[in-house]
């Protein structure tokens, strides 16, 4: 439908020519080559599109910290919380509802010390020593906000801008706005994505823009990273023969109906699928990386291995032209005993994330790659105790959409910079507020897309990622 409109007449002429040739004795190999070439020059939904503005970044790696990491333990020291640790705090502007286990409003001091890092002096917890090493690359946003306190809905808003509807995700918008550089790969890949497909879906945008999920990165090259990427029972040659048989049928049918874009699309999709079967395992196979690189990320070691593979793959995907890579790193939902649990989560995530930033930098990729690190929300300054009887040292923290911390790196943002402040407890934003709509507007801006002009007509209305909101946060632009 919509994608069909993008197909130009020239493209259709090419196709016609191709189909005629295909009818008169092209071998399978030549066919494949032609399909590949055509895919690259395609006017399809993933064709390269010119941005509105001069872009500062060409691609995005979104490191999504699912669960909501505690900004007050990691990046935002509040002396009041140390001073009043375990005592009731005089919070004003209380939320209308009080979550279970937080009704005592006991101030909870940080789980570990935060100290100034690098030349910028950004505060980073001792729990993240590796990140501290790249502190001067980072641009902190301490006044982040979303609108909902539930994981699923905040995650949805973080990814799509809205809570109660199905709208395209950020990666889908970026793919739609810019297209992709490598037609053999999807434009948007989500590694270790959560279960909610809407968070990486394309909604009403053409489906080619939806995130392709890599559920787990196989250690054994025979296992597949993308669902149904391979059929281990069928040898490649046998499958090729089957596809050839089917495509011959398809060509006969297409000739009979003379013209049908969806039929052509199905035929293309078989060829792309066949190429992906060959290309993807190579890309996902990390064994060609140097020992030093693997070591830097923490591949093959615990507890970093899973996230290390994901971060390293994110870099590799960027290198081959994937436009938007999302890496989900979970385990941040610390309702209880945050002092025990947070160090573990940091140990899993810190080294891979820092290695990714350093690696991008070393390869010159950080220049035009925007790295975004954030949870769907942050955590409260007061403690949460679900049992009602636990000592303060084993309390956790509740969700907090009112204020939290994200950081960016690379792709046109200020280096070693911090923006936004919260009140003395770290609850309300008192300056430099960045609502998720503003962050979306800013990400698009850095990619050369004007969030007010990146629209899609659906049901009679022009939709935007930022709905009717959003301001570019100019203060953080380099």
């Amino acid at each position, binding site marked *: *439908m919509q*994608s069909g409109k993008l197909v130009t007449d020239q493209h259709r002429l090419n196709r016609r020519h191709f189909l005629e040739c295909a009818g008169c004795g092209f071998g399978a190999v030549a066919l494949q080559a032609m399909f590949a070439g055509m895919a690259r020059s395609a006017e399809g939904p993933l064709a390269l599109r010119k941005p509105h503005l001069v872009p500062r970044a060409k691609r995005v790696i979104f490191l999504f910290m699912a669960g909501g990491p505690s900004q007050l333990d990691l990046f935002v020291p509040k002396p009041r919380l140390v001073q009043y640790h375990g005592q009731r705090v005089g919070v004003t502007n209380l*939320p*209308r*509802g*009080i*979550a279970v286990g937080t009704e005592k409003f006991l101030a909870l001091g940080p789980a570990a010390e935060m100290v100034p890092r690098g030349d910028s002096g950004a505060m980073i917890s001792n729990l993240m020593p590796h990140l501290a090493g790249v502190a001067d690359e980072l641009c902190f946003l301490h006044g982040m906000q979303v609108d*909902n*306190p*539930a994981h*699923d*809905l905040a995650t*949805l808003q973080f990814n799509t801008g809205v809570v*109660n509807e199905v709208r395209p995700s950020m990666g889908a918008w970026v793919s739609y706005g810019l297209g992709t550089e490598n037609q053999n790969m*999807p434009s948007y890949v989500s590694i270790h994505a959560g279960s*909610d497909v*809407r968070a990486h*879906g394309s909604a*009403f945008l*053409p*489906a080619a823009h939806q995130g392709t999920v890599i559920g787990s990165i196989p250690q054994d090259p025979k296992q597949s990273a*993308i*669902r*149904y*990427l391979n*059929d281990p*029972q069928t*040898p490649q040659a*046998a*499958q090729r*023969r*089957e596809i050839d048989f*089917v495509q011959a*049928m398809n060509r*006969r*049918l*297409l000739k009979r*109906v*003379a*013209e*049908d874009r*969806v*039929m052509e*699309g*199905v035929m293309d*999709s078989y060829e*792309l699928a066949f190429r*992906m*079967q060959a290309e993807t395992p190579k890309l996902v196979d990390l064994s060609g990386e140097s020992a030093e690189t693997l070591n830097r990320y923490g591949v093959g070691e615990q507890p970093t291995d899973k996230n290390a593979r994901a971060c390293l793959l994110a870099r590799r995907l960027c290198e081959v032209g994937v436009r938007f890579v999302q890496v989900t790193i979970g385990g941040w939902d610390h*309702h209880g005993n945050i002092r025990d649990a947070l160090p573990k989560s940091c140990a899993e995530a810190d080294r891979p994330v820092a290695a990714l930033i350093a690696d991008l930098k070393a390869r010159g990729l950080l220049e035009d790659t925007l790295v975004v690190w954030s949870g769907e929300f942050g955590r409260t300054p007061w403690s*949460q105790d679900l049992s009602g009887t636990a000592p303060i040292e084993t309390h956790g923290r509740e*969700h*907090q959409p*009112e204020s939290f911390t994200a950081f960016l790196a690379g792709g046109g943002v200020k280096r070693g910079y911090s923006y936004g402040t919260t009140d003395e407890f770290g609850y309300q934003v*008192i*300056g430099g507020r960045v609502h998720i709509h503003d962050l979306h507007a800013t990400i698009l801006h850095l990619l050369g897309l004007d969030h007010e002009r990146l629209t899609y007509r659906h*049901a*009679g*209305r022009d939709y935007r990622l930022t709905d009717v909101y959003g*301001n570019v946060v100019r203060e953080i632009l380099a």
Partner: protein
Amino acid sequence: MVKGMQTRIRSQLVCPLVLAALVLPTIASAGEADPLTPGQMAFFEQRVRPLLIERCYTCHSEAKKVNGGLRLDSRRGLIEGGDSGPAISPGKPEESLLIKAVRYQDTDLQMPPDGKLAAAELAVLEEWVRIGASDPRADTASSEKTDVNRAAARAHWAYQPLQQVAPPAVGDGQWPRGNVDRFVLAKLEVRGLHPSLDADRYLWLRRVSLDLTGLPPTRNEIQSFIDDHSPLAWEHVVDRLLASRDFGERSARPWLDLVGYADQIGSANNVPAEHAWRYRDYVIQAFRDDKPFDEFIREQLAGDLLTAQSIEQRQSQLTATGFLVLGNVNIVESDKLIMQMDLVDQQIEKVGKTFLGMTLNCARCHDHKFDPVTLRDYYGLAGIFSSTESTYKEQRGVWSSVTKSPLPETLEQFTQREAALRENAKKVAAVHEPRVTAEARLRELTPLVKAARENPTAAAPGAKSLADLEKEQAELTKSLATLEQQSWHLKYLEPSTPLAYSVKERAEIADAQLQVRGNPHVLGPAVPRGFVEVATHGSPPTIPADQSGRLQLANWLTGPASSLVARVTVNRIWQRLFGRGLVGSVDYFGVRGELPTHPELLDYLAGQFIRDGWSQKRLIRELVLSRTYRQRAEADDSSQVAITADPENRLLWRMSPRRLDAEMLRDAVLAVSGELKPCTGGPALAPEFIENVGGLNPTDVNPVSFSLSKFRDDQRNLRTIYLPVVRSSEQQGPAEVLNFFDFAQPARLAGDRPTTSVASQALYLLNGPLLKDAARKLAAKLLDDTTLTTDDGRFSVLYLRALGRPPATEESIAAREFFTNRDAPTTGADSGGTDPLAAWPRLIHALLTSNDFLFRL
């Protein structure tokens, strides 16, 4: 996981100030100021106006944007203000919002956002307000301009009453089989185009079977149609298909797309919508019974308010109102007012889109930008739905739930339930007994363990060691926990009075108040409950003060608004049969929607639909028996002109091929392989498996949750419509196919799914289990069939089953070649070679991945 309870309104929109009324009574006088003195004039023109233009107009002027509803390009704009109230209070800079904003006094409101004004500029504005904010600017008559636009929009075709249309005269009097064909042919003739030849019987039968039932024809059905030499052979087929249960199952699914149906409430925490299946079954039955569409509307909006002649009818009526609450209903929000108004908004969106082809919800915040829908229309409807109870607060944490009604039971149902209850009671007892025993033994053990720990050496001879005691204690504790889970589970499964998600009248019936920018905490005047004015022809029903108005809304839709409702409905049916609506934008008939390709035909069909008592089956019967529908999809030499003139086939010079949708694809694969099992409905979730239910502990703050860890054995063989639909994850288990083939995510209320072709679909078809299993099973059946003795015979049967037609000669040759000339065998059951057990599945798999199978021609 515990959900937070903090709630906020969309804070960036709303300032902590009291807002002025949205509508106008006090404002006219404010706009009329005394003439300016030359001094005031000069000050404004030289100092103030340039500043406003340079720093404010980009975001706050008619010509550019009106952020926050605030315009600073007119006197009236400043005084009326925007969402946050008047921008200035003349003479009082300290009380003027504009001044506070430019001073960056308040962190929530700092203007201009890209940098504070210079001190001198700030001083100009302060001074200007202090001396009375004299402003010579004429007020651009924005409201008049809007009125003009609205008048033009009123003239839009969709809002006109149905025209009485007679079928046009045509040149080729031989071709049409009925009036539909005359309308279509007349358009083609005007453009110098010709209709295509009739499709052959095989193709037509597969087409009409898939369109009406979602299933391909069986071999027997094909044979009897080929053998039916009566001139009414086509009618026989259509009548058979319309009478089948499959017809209801096929027709219901698009309706569920519009409803946003799922077996999950909202999308947080996997809360099961355990009674939703009743609504799904109601819809299937309604289509199957050809329930008149006007009654279908009335039951879904106001079934609870209708009178019933029987217990079954009452069940249907109550269940039908699930229409209003089976969308993506948010039930976890501590601000219950916002939650309620978001649902009201969704209900208005649903009614607008489904029945009227209108996007009414734009008018939640402002008069519609291009359609003649006003805030008053919106809040008139909002009053109806806010006077309706759709959710209620649960006893758990911040959770609410969707309103349920107990259904009356027939004697038979009641007797069955009593029996089930007795069965359940037995199971409860079976769990209770060991639980009591285990608890008693644990009570004994506690002091023993304690004693043994304190004095490990003093154990009596023959007594158990500490280690043994501890082991027993641990095991008992564990089994007690399991028993406890089991008893909660049985309690949860207890066959109680059947319930349906169903709305009710609220105890308090009231008109809704206008909400500033859709914020329910910032209210304007009340708006009388009512309907959308522009769609009304004739006098709308009056809503009594003590009724919500849902019944009147239903009567309005099927009465004064019936022109639009009938057009939208007829168009949806057309779309399902021809692939594209006469109006392409099936959910949106508004000013920016697509124009009808055949407006006279649309009105003709809509008028006839109403006269035929809103019967969908009669309309469908007429359409599929038309010659227009009978055309081939294949082109021939003479088609070149038409392809060039009308490549999208909007004028219907042939039948457009269409790829099977996700449900059809899976159902057809199951049918072809002989694995499809009939079903009469019932619960999609399977809570009888304890691993599928979580949060059973009654003291848990979160509601019971479901998972789809285990499916019933027969679910793999049921039509896709009977499989569970989830909101917060991909579709699971046998419903997995939906994730790949454009299934409408169940919060997207949509009457039209896109048809995409992407690589993940190809991977699923090539490597996924659906086609592989089917191919294996069908191969076994073919080889087991003793009536088939040759491969050619098997080819013929296979093509009939899979593609609904015999193979063409060249296809037989190609198939034979693929079949015999295979690569060297490898290993395993699926190896190559000419082993028929391996070769047949591969050929069948190939056929099922071909476009001949994936499309209905």
